[in-house]
């Protein structure tokens, strides 16, 4: 880290205005779950608009007014190619928006969307431009046809000789309906492989089982609900960090701007500081211990009799309703193996009796385990549920995110939903239980996951989704196709995973030496027959190391703005993300690439002409689901339009799924499980699932589930820091999105975050001689990883204790470097790093032992010893990085 590489951002003092005849397209932000509405203005080079309203396409007199949402910053401008000709492009928050980002509010990420666009004169020139094959060690350009021929040749061999289990895909789950539909149709429909994992977890399955199995859809709330709530409990999330506009528009304002906020987090963030200042609470939890805090709050509420009795009477399932029924319900869910024994789901009376006698729900015990002062837990219970003197209750909503579900996945999410339900939340305006969300909702399954083929099984009868990382480490894969994800650094215990990839690709003696596809296929057959693997990486940039080191084929994808795409945001709002400029080089959208490969394999049903074709075909697969847009496609056909074009007419407002047809018109659905929603008979293509107005269980009632600290305790004790180790937890930081794939091409963002950081408490820093700006090494020589253990037979076979006894837990190591930020925003004993800085991955110090019931990683529970290396170049720079405190309100 030489001094010369510190970033120096060069601000501009002028921005071009769009002339009145500039072309306007609507889109939404590519990044976080909120998906703010944007307008894109494009016009040929050589012209510009003027500062009078009549002289520009914004119809604004400059200077633009304060908080009008009509100002353009220089980072909103870029030069792109449209039909081969250079054009100016302005990507501007929609100042006329009445939904989501009302009045043109936006985040630092979305506000700089224009810099994402390919420009040969800017850092985005690093985009992948052609398919490439690694020949004699170097990735070189080839044709699409050669790429498909090599992939198909190797795939046929792998499927014939090793079966579908050896043929894997690791892809994003969210990058537009058109692409995920094509991916799932190929993987699950045509290949029928169980070896599939989404970008952020080792296999498919629910992230928040405590919600799903209670009958609560994770995205049932609308942004109006967060705005209308009087109290909100945030578990493992501060929406100010990366759900910016959800916080700055809906939580700071909304229908009830005086709401009280309670945050349970190991780290004080800006939203927390703002909430505290306005009478809210900050519960500084030790990582991984939320369940006991939530249980203690629930118990206090029940001890005081503050529960919502009328709601519980009407909406909480009784024992008969839990135990019977053929539809969705704990008897018939993926967790049947444990609910069969009646361990979790229980009626209200039973739940109350259980929690009042449960040791880990006692205030004193919970306070000791979680590190949260008892008084704060008591205050939280009071704020959430204590009825007012007139008997009315506060309208309380509950938001959770990865801070709790990537720790103790099952225990944290079940105790969370139970806490929300006894407060009467989940099915009415301002009183909802939902995720805040990470990425947007862009999965449209073209076929179901072939669970029956999965190599994993719970004790009892139920199959379990694959843990694809363990499958790699155990040497079971021969072909892996990676689309739009960093894979290795994004997964837990990442350095162990990296070693496995290295061994099976570059470490194999059979390397391609010819551009002749037949010769390449023969070489790769020898590789897979000698225990090796072919990795194909499809992305918009070269991704290290999966694309730069392990892949023999690299495929260039077209992305946001380069194709018409669709998806939903965190309140299920469906929008068209318009194409407005040319994809660079030979880059193609992912659905097109999937189609090319599938046709080469001889699969039918992949002959789409354009993305609208895919969108229309996919619609029928979403019928009956939360993201159902099928009525839009039917309506478009009735009107003689393409479905994309009809959606385009809805602009940045879009329409909330599931879409219904009422009186011949399309109507959106504001919230799910909505007891205030009046439904007539379903019209035309409209589907009325029970969960529109009731909970998503076969009885329509919500299920209380017990949470046992003992289920998690063995693992927690094994991974918690000892001696001079500290917790090394991780998460998002507002100014960056995901792995920084775009941010790293934004000089403006790189001046702020030029390298991985780690926040450390002043006492911990002093003890190690660390100051802000010092470069430190974080090392964990006790990274626990699971190998084998695919089949459970007896009840506890997959628990950490039993896995360890059976020899399935081994110790690995991990390390990364980071720039220290000394701050009391983190608890003593806890440090916090960016969750995925690809060149210095915090996940390398995270254990790779998934939740035994849900297969979810415990990403937040890393630990390590931290030592000073020396000064970073940023310590005394005036141009790169700042060490000023963030949580200031």
């Amino acid at each position, binding site marked *: 880290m030489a001094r010369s590489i510190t970033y120096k951002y060069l601000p501009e003092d*002028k921005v071009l205005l769009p002339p009145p005849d500039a072309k306007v397209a609507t889109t939404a932000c590519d990044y976080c779950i909120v998906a703010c509405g944007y307008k894109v203005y494009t016009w040929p080079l050589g012209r510009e608009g003027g500062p009078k309203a009549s002289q520009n396409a914004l119809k604004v*007199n400059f200077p633009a007014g304060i908080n009008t949402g009509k100002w353009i910053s220089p980072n909103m401008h870029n030069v792109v190619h449209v039909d081969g000709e250079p054009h100016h492009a302005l990507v501007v928050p929609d100042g006329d928006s009445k939904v989501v980002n009302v009045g043109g509010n936006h985040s630092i990420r979305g506000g700089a969307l224009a810099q994402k666009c390919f420009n040969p004169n800017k850092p985005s020139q690093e985009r992948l431009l052609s398919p490439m094959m690694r020949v004699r060690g170097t990735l070189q350009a080839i044709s699409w046809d050669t790429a498909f021929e090599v992939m198909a040749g190797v795939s046929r061999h792998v499927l014939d000789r090793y079966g579908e289990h050896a043929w894997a895909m690791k892809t994003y789950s969210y990058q537009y309906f058109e692409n995920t539909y094509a991916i799932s149709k190929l993987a699950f429909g045509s290949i029928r492989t169980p070896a599939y994992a989404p970008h952020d977890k080792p296999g498919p399955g629910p992230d928040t089982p405590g919600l799903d199995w209670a009958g609560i859809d994770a995205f049932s709330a609308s942004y109006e609900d967060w705005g209308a709530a009087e109290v909100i409990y945030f578990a493992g999330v501060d929406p100010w960090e990366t759900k910016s506009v959800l916080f700055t528009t809906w939580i700071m304002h909304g229908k009830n701007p005086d709401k009280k906020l309670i945050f349970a987090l190991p780290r004080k963030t800006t939203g927390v500081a703002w909430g505290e200042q306005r009478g809210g609470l900050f519960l500084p939890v030790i990582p991984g211990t939320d369940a006991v805090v939530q249980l203690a709050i629930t118990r206090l509420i029940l001890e005081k009799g503050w529960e919502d009795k009328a709601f519980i009477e009407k909406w909480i399932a009784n024992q008969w309703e839990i135990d019977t029924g053929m539809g969705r319900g704990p008897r018939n869910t993926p967790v049947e193996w444990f609910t069969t024994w009646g361990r979790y789901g229980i009626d209200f009376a039973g739940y109350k009796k259980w929690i009042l006698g449960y040791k880990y729900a006692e205030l004193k015990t919970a306070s000791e385990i979680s590190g949260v002062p008892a008084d704060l837990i008591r205050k939280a219970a009071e704020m959430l549920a204590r009825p007012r003197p007139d008997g009315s209750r506060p309208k309380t909503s509950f938001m959770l995110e990865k801070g709790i579900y990537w720790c103790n996945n099952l225990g944290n999410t079940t105790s969370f939903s139970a806490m929300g339900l006894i407060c009467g939340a989940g099915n009415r305006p301002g009183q909802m239980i939902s995720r805040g969300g990470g990425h947007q909702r862009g999965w449209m399954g073209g076929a179901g996951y072939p669970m029956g083929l999965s190599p994993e099984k719970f004790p009892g009868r139920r199959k379990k989704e694959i843990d694809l990382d363990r499958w790699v480490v155990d040497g079971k894969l021969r072909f892996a196709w990676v689309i739009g994800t960093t894979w290795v650094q994004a997964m837990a215990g990442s350095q162990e995973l990296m070693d496995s990839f290295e061994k099976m690709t570059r470490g194999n003696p059979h390397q391609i030496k010819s551009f002749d596809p037949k010769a390449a296929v023969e070489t790769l057959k020898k590789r897979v027959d000698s225990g090796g693997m072919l990795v194909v990486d499809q992305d918009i940039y070269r991704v290290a190391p999966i694309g730069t080191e392990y892949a023999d084929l690299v495929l260039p994808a077209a992305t946001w703005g380069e194709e018409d795409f669709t998806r939903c945001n965190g309140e299920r709002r469906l929008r068209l993300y318009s194409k407005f400029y040319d994809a660079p080089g030979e880059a193609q959208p992912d659905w097109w690439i999937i189609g090319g490969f599938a046709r080469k394999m001889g699969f039918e049903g992949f002959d789409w002409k354009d993305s609208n074709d895919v969108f229309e075909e996919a619609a029928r697969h979403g019928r009956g689901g939360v993201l159902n847009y099928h009525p839009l496609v039917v309506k478009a056909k009735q009107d003689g339009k393409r479905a994309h074009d009809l959606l385009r007419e809805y602009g940045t407002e879009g329409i909330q799924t599931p879409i219904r047809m009422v009186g011949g018109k399309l109507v959106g659905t504001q919230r799910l499980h909505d007891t205030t929603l009046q439904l007539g008979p379903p019209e035309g293509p409209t589907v009325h699932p029970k969960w529109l107005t009731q909970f998503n269980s076969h009885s329509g009632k919500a299920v209380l589930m017990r949470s046992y600290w003992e289920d998690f305790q063995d693992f927690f004790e094994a991974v918690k820091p000892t001696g001079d180790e500290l917790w090394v937890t991780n998460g998002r930081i507002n100014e960056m999105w995901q792995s920084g794939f775009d941010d790293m091409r934004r000089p403006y963002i790189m*001046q702020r975050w030029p390298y991985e950081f780690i926040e450390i408490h002043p006492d911990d820093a002093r003890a190690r001689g660390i100051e802000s700006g010092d470069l430190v090494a974080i090392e964990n020589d006790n990274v626990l990883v699971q190998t084998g253990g695919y089949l459970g037979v007896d009840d506890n076979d997959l628990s950490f204790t039993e896995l360890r006894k059976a020899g399935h837990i081994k110790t690995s190591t991990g390390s990364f470097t980071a720039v220290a930020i000394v701050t009391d925003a983190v608890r003593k004993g806890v440090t916090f790093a960016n969750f995925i800085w690809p060149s210095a991955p915090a996940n390398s110090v995270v254990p790779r032992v998934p939740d035994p019931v849900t297969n979810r990683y415990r990403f937040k529970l890393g630990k390590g010893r931290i030592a000073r290396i020396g000064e970073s170049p940023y310590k005394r720079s005036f141009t790169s990085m700042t060490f000023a405190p963030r949580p200031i309100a």
Partner: protein
Amino acid sequence: MNEHAQSGERLCLSRRGFLLASGTAVSVTLLEGPLSVALGQGAALQRATYPRARIGRVSQLKADQPVTFQYPWKDANSTNMLVKLGREAGGGVGPARDIVAFSTLCTHMGGPLAGQYRAQHKIVGPCPLHLTTFDLTRHGMVVAGQATESLPQIVLETKGDEIWATGVMGLIYGYHSNLAPRA
């Protein structure tokens, strides 16, 4: 040691020194005269021409007590704060190179930052609209928040005790061009 000290610039940083230290490629033509001087329009992006204006005296500044001034225009958008941070800063002038000046409109959506200076941390903010904060020792870099540009820094020079504004680094909120802000 910091970059500026190592670069061997003379103590009282010249505008040229400021710009180099800030890494910018902007070249500036000096234009003597009062604010009211009519400015040429259509200045190329990389060649800005700013007026010079005397905005204060080193001897009259008290540490951590910002004073307001107008530059480069007299409208509300051109409101800035001049502050002696008491800590060396990027682009700082004066004997301790701790005197800096910044626009007081947030570059997110124009929220008012006047009165939001936090002496303890040398930051300004949080903006009352959406809580963005800016580091005044680091050329107005966002500490946390939503602004898509750093807070525009007013380029300063000292002539003896006098402090002169001689340019603006970054587009001021509301303007589409610092030099031709209105029709």
